[in-house]
């Protein structure tokens, strides 16, 4: 509404999540793209490093954050379904290959071998969904394995000492585990998309649609930068994440940073919501289409 326009925004609070390999964020920050875009209007851009999805949505609900630059689709759905006023404005990345089930035991080669084994990983996440999808694809059910709930670092550590047979892993953790002798049982390819989205606070979007649009523009600029300066991008990413350039190059192709929301993405999110409901992790449901805002 035009009346709200009078309310001057002084500061935009944005999350800054660099891992697992959030190249566009890294570029936006290192190239001062947002600062120079909004600096024109004397608007400060504050970056907040909040990695965990639930914490991002909590801070958003509390009004401390305006834009969540890289939020797992699962977290977005959970929060929205439980009443948080948030909207998805674009896709940050899809990385089916970055999410994987890994194992150190030689006799677990493919998901079918997981029958009767212990698998560890974070509950209610893309990774969990991946596991379920992989089981279903191999005519197994949740009852056929023993699932142990833990975060990724713990799962990898537990796999290393043999407490569990397979771990759900993503990002640098999986890369290092692979370097340390683990092998991939399956990735998300063909099973889950592993979408990471860009979400904004509903109220912020309603009051300042222009700012959101300008943010979206900067996001596109960063994608262009990545396309045009690959070597520079690798270097900056390596610097920021502490990974080696080789590792970055190895991981980079796992990610698809196309920001457009395609119908397939919406389908995928619906599947995710179904998965959450089916597994008793979500009781309410939300219409996914209502979550999506298309910026013109």
């Amino acid at each position: 509404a035009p009346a709200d326009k009078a309310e001057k925004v002084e500061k935009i609070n944005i999350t800054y999540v660099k891992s697992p390999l959030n190249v566009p964020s890294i570029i936006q920050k290192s190239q001062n793209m947002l600062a120079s875009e909004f600096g024109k209007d004397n608007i400060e851009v504050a970056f907040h490093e909040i990695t965990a999805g639930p914490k991002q949505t909590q801070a958003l609900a509390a009004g401390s954050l305006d834009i969540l630059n890289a939020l797992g689709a699962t977290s977005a759905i959970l929060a929205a379904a439980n009443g948080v006023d948030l909207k998805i404005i674009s896709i940050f990345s899809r990385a089916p290959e970055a999410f994987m089930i890994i194992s150190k035991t030689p006799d677990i080669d493919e998901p079918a071998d997981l029958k009767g084994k212990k698998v560890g990983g974070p509950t209610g996440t893309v990774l969990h969904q991946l596991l379920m999808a992989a089981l279903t694809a191999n005519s197994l059910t949740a009852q056929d394995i023993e699932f142990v709930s833990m975060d990724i670092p713990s799962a990898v550590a537990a796999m290393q000492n043999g407490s569990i047979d397979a771990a759900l892993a993503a990002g640098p953790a999986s890369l290092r585990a692979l370097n340390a002798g683990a092998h991939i049982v399956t990735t998300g390819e063909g099973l889950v998309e592993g979408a990471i989205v860009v979400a904004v606070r509903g109220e912020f979007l309603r009051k300042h649609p222009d700012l959101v649009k300008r943010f979206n523009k900067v996001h596109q600029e960063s994608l262009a930068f990545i396309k045009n300066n690959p070597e520079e991008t690798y270097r900056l990413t390596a610097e920021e994440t502490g990974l080696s350039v080789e590792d970055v190059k190895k991981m980079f192709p796992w990610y698809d940073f196309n920001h457009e929301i395609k119908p397939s993405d919406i389908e995928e999110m619906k599947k995710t919501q179904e998965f959450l409901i089916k597994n008793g992790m979500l009781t309410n449901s939300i219409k996914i289409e209502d979550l999506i805002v298309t910026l013109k």
Partner: protein
Amino acid sequence: MNHRLIEGLCLPFFIVAFWFIGSGLELWNEFIIPSPQKTWQSAQFLLSEGILTSHVLVSLYRVFAGFLLAFFLAFPLGILTGMKPKVLGYLEPILELIRHIPPLATVPMLILWFGIGETPKLVIIILTTFFPIFLNTLNGVVHCDKKLLEVGQSFGFNSRDKFMKIILPASLPNILIGMRIGLGYSWRALMGAELIAASAGIGFMINEATHLSRPDIIIVGILTIGIIGTVSDHLFFRILHRFVPWKDEKEVQNGGG
């Protein structure tokens, strides 16, 4: 007693009233602090399904096992180092180091050494509980009245007698306060402990509710820990007092009748 209860319930009453009113007037975000009604519904659901009870039982076991293990490590070590400063000299730097390290940081190592069963969870609780008991016991022993110790010495008491008949009763207030702080921290350590591959427990319930964005369950969990913790503290130290054969000077003065 009744009077004290009423006094004590004043502040909680106001807080709950404020919660009701604030939620009614929508003073804050429903997603972070759900209304009392909604919280109560969730609590009832969790209770009626027996979910809450089973979580509580699992956590109770962990807390008490962890606390007792911590006690049986910290208490004798506090006594030993208090009575033999030489031993303290050897152990102090390493204990000081451990004392400052966040137990959560050691989770990967704990998993490596202890797997993902109950052991690493208990170790987290022990690491959190150990130091208040240890340091307060040590302090009590070190500051034990020298004049009373000399009485024991003059009667040719051996270390054991000195300990049992003088040091222990004299430093009991300190030891008890260390145990109370320790027991409190045992409850607090649950969240961290039950991050490690738990499938039940109040800490697990809260962790999961956080992941699944269920603030109502988080609040139920917080209140459950708070209440069960308070009650267990009360019971534990009541019972302990029964077993303690000596009366506190204060009690005697406040009416020995």
